[in-house]
């Protein structure tokens, strides 16, 4: 069974793609801007004026003594960040390859079917 080629879609594909991407780009940019602003937003003063949580970070002066060793916690935290990010990038790459292979398989099957159909006519 022959398949008509969708040639009329090819002409202005690049222009269409560029204009189609614009809303997504604007959405991404707006999200980045919105949350960057929110991250630095001012906090309202406490009702009783007393805070029992950290409000500032100061640089160390003199010899340092720690009750809970921070090194292993720091290493663990950075390991988690890199395993998560690089693991996801790896997964994304494999997914891309898998989808590409799937697409190639279907295209080959369609091309084969078209060839057989044209030979039988």
């Amino acid at each position, binding site marked *: 069974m022959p398949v008509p080629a969708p040639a009329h879609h090819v002409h202005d594909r690049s222009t269409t793609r560029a204009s189609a991407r614009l809303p997504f780009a604007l959405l991404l940019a707006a999200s980045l801007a919105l*949350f960057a602003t929110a991250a630095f937003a001012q906090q309202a003063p406490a009702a009783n004026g007393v805070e029992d949580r950290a409000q500032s970070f100061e640089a160390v002066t003199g010899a340092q003594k720690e009750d809970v060793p921070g090194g292993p916690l720091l290493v663990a935290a950075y390991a*988690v960040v890199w395993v998560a990010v690089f693991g996801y990038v790896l997964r994304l790459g494999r997914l891309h390859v898998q989808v590409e292979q799937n697409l190639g398989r279907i295209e080959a099957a369609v091309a084969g079917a078209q060839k057989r159909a044209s030979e039988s006519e």
Partner: protein
Amino acid sequence: MSQSPLARPSARPPVTLTVLAVGTALLLLAVLYAIFHVAPVERQMGIVQKIFYFHVPSAYAMYVGFAVSAVSSAVYLAKHDERWDAFAVAGAEVGSIFCVIVLVTGPLWARKAWGTFWTWDPRLTTTLLAGMVFFAYLVLRSFGSIGEIEKRFAAGLAVFGLLDLPIIHYSVQRWRGTHPTVITGKGGGLHPDMRPALLLGFVFFSALVALLIWQRARVERLRQRCEALEIEAAERGLLEEG
């Protein structure tokens, strides 16, 4: 979709995406240098305070990912355009990765700061809630070729998840918790030498979240077209059974 599914989608990444990827890699080197060579060790917390430079920008990246997912889902519900659905999936997935980073690095910090890995602080609890909402979205979407009803239900879930984001952000102001409020402008803030590391952290994670969402959406679009091609070819009898 305006384009026929039988048209071959471009597999080559756009130049902008490649430039963004290279820029992100360079930013990573810069932020690591700033964290470990420029920023001083913190007086109270010690070296574990350096988690802060990735923990906070990760939370910001999580906000961005979840917001992109929710807004794209809302547009998908209104327009039924598969492109927005691809961005919704991408945003939820990438946002969830950063949510995991926040929820793991935070307790590691807390072990040192509070003596415990977890406490039901308002910000921690609402962040966990947002993570659970978007994990539920991803579980729903992970059932392969789901139908229109399931997609719309998942989109509704993502929109619901958006409601939690401002609650997370303002929870440290509205409720009395133990979560630090260093960069909100109320307390002493950051030591001046610590600021470049945090600023670079924000820039790096902004680039990273944009890169990952963009690439994941591209792959999702490719998957959607592959699925549509398969359906169309099957309907025309071009594919063999099984």
